[in-house]
């Protein structure tokens, strides 16, 4: 595990907007964090001064602009903290701690080496599967994967067209985008794992699937990919207090006979699916 540089900065909110899918997006001025952050890293935010809410809230980086010194986060309003964030106005300053977690970079995992010069005719593929706000952390990975020569496709699903976030930036980066909605209002009618199933057949052992979304979706993917021996990485969420490894609160059970736990904030948030238990209690 590398030792990330973690900064606790008072960042200015540069912009906040409500986007498609009912999510909010904010750009924050945080050069120290933008300079070193990797895909799938996150920040822990003190949403407002005072004790209500009391703990910080973790959010993935949905865009990283090291040159401009800006990071972006994208969130759905699900409770008190995210509700307050929706009322942020430009100029406000918020305390953010980051970048946190190991993130996920193809280089770190030693995955790019063999693929840049593909053996056969087919370029190695990176398949992203996202449900709901699970799309947020995907974009920085697309950026870096394209640089490493991967073909990238995204499978993204939600309840309905309105619940889906905008995917333009993915398309503009040369990523093939496949959409599913449960009500059929856009793309494939059904859940995203159903849509992904057709593609799964054509994947080979050198390809990689990275998924982020609700636990049941991740569970299903784990069994699908497991059956076909496809390498699956899952990004996990757990209730967090510190986000940096101090409290041991964000435990996730390791799979197999090992009775232990790993921690989302220091060992994750991305895990090789085989190494963790995703089963609902």
């Amino acid at each position, binding site marked *: 595990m590398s030792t990330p540089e973690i900064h606790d900065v008072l960042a200015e909110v540069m912009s906040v907007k409500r986007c498609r899918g009912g999510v909010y997006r904010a750009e924050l001025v945080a050069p120290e964090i933008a300079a070193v952050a990797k895909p799938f890293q996150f920040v822990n935010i003190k949403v407002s001064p005072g004790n209500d809410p009391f703990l910080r809230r973790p959010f993935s980086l949905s865009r990283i602009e090291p040159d401009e010194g800006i990071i972006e986060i994208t969130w759905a309003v699900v409770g008190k903290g995210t509700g307050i964030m929706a009322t942020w106005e430009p100029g406000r300053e918020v305390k953010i701690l980051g970048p946190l977690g190991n993130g996920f970079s193809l280089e770190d995992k030693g995955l790019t080496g063999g693929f840049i010069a593909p053996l056969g005719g087919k370029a190695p593929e990176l398949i992203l599967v996202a449900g709901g706000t699970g799309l947020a952390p995907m974009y920085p990975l697309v950026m870096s994967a394209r640089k490493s020569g991967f073909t990238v496709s995204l499978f993204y699903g939600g309840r309905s067209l309105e619940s889906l976030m905008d995917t333009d930036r993915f398309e503009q980066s040369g990523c093939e985008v496949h959409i599913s909605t449960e009500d059929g209002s856009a793309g494939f009618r059904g859940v995203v794992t159903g849509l992904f199933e057709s593609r799964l057949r054509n994947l080979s052992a050198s390809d990689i699937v990275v998924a982020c979304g609700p636990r049941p979706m991740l569970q299903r993917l784990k069994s699908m990919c497991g059956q076909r021996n496809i390498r699956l990485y899952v990004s996990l969420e757990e209730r967090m207090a510190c986000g940096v*490894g101090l409290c041991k609160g964000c435990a996730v059970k390791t799979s197999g006979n090992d009775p232990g*736990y790993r921690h989302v904030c220091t060992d994750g948030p991305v895990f090789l699916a085989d190494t963790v238990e995703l089963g609902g209690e």
Partner: protein
Amino acid sequence: MDLSVNLAGLTLKNPVIAASGVFGYGEEYVKVGDIRWFGAVSVKGTTLNPRAGNPPPRTCETPAGMLNSIGLENPGAKVVIEEKLPWLAQFGVPVIVNISGESYEEFRTLGSMFSESPLVSALEVNVSCPNVRAGGMAFGVDPRSCYRATYAVRRAWHGPLIVKLTPNVQDISSVARAAVEGGADAISLINTLVGLAIDIKKRKPVLGSVTGGLSGPAIKPVALRCVYEVSQAVPVPVIGMGGILDYRDALEFIMAGATAVAVGTAVLVNPSVPRSIVEGLIKYGQEEGVERISDLVGVAWR
């Protein structure tokens, strides 16, 4: 203002201690803060054998506080002695080892194991953890068993001995007196209050292990009451904790009778909190003309 305090023969350069359980063994903390702002650090509750901890979810926010049910996840005394303490020693900050046993026998064994290490400044006997089934809080709710647990460590350990008490009792002073009779050189309080939260969507308790320990500002009034009472009931120094966020909170505890204070949950929200408390205390001392922080200990009842 002279911030140094004397705690059971141990001199701390300032009275701000890292509470056990929010500092691990320091390895994660160094990435977000400078250990040297602490007057001393109390490491994660350490058991004889390694413990994996409790099933998730392990934390949950509550009004002005949080519940945790970590369950003493730790690598066990041997690894702590051989790997963690030697690394932590480099910072030159006194290390308090927080220990938790499942039996008097285990407490004694822990006492003698840590006696072998020159890197331990003090032992803190945790008879107050609400998150483990065997041992844990059981020893701290009854004066007799608190006496015995303390005495078990005392026989094996000859350095400064701190006993950490739980507020989940009806008369904390009598438990504190029992700890002193058992050989405690200082009392630290409070550990968390037993609490619970319900997830109304799932219609189940939020925490994987149902109940957890409540910490943070919410419990500050309870902690202050315990410090106010116990510091008058025992002849040894008290380390006060429970919801301290800033130097004003620290002053409340000191005036209520605490010789030193510890910060727990605040570290999780704001890792550089020891620095801001120390700087706040220095400024306060200048403005109010207080020469020694120790002059304020217990002024509220003296």
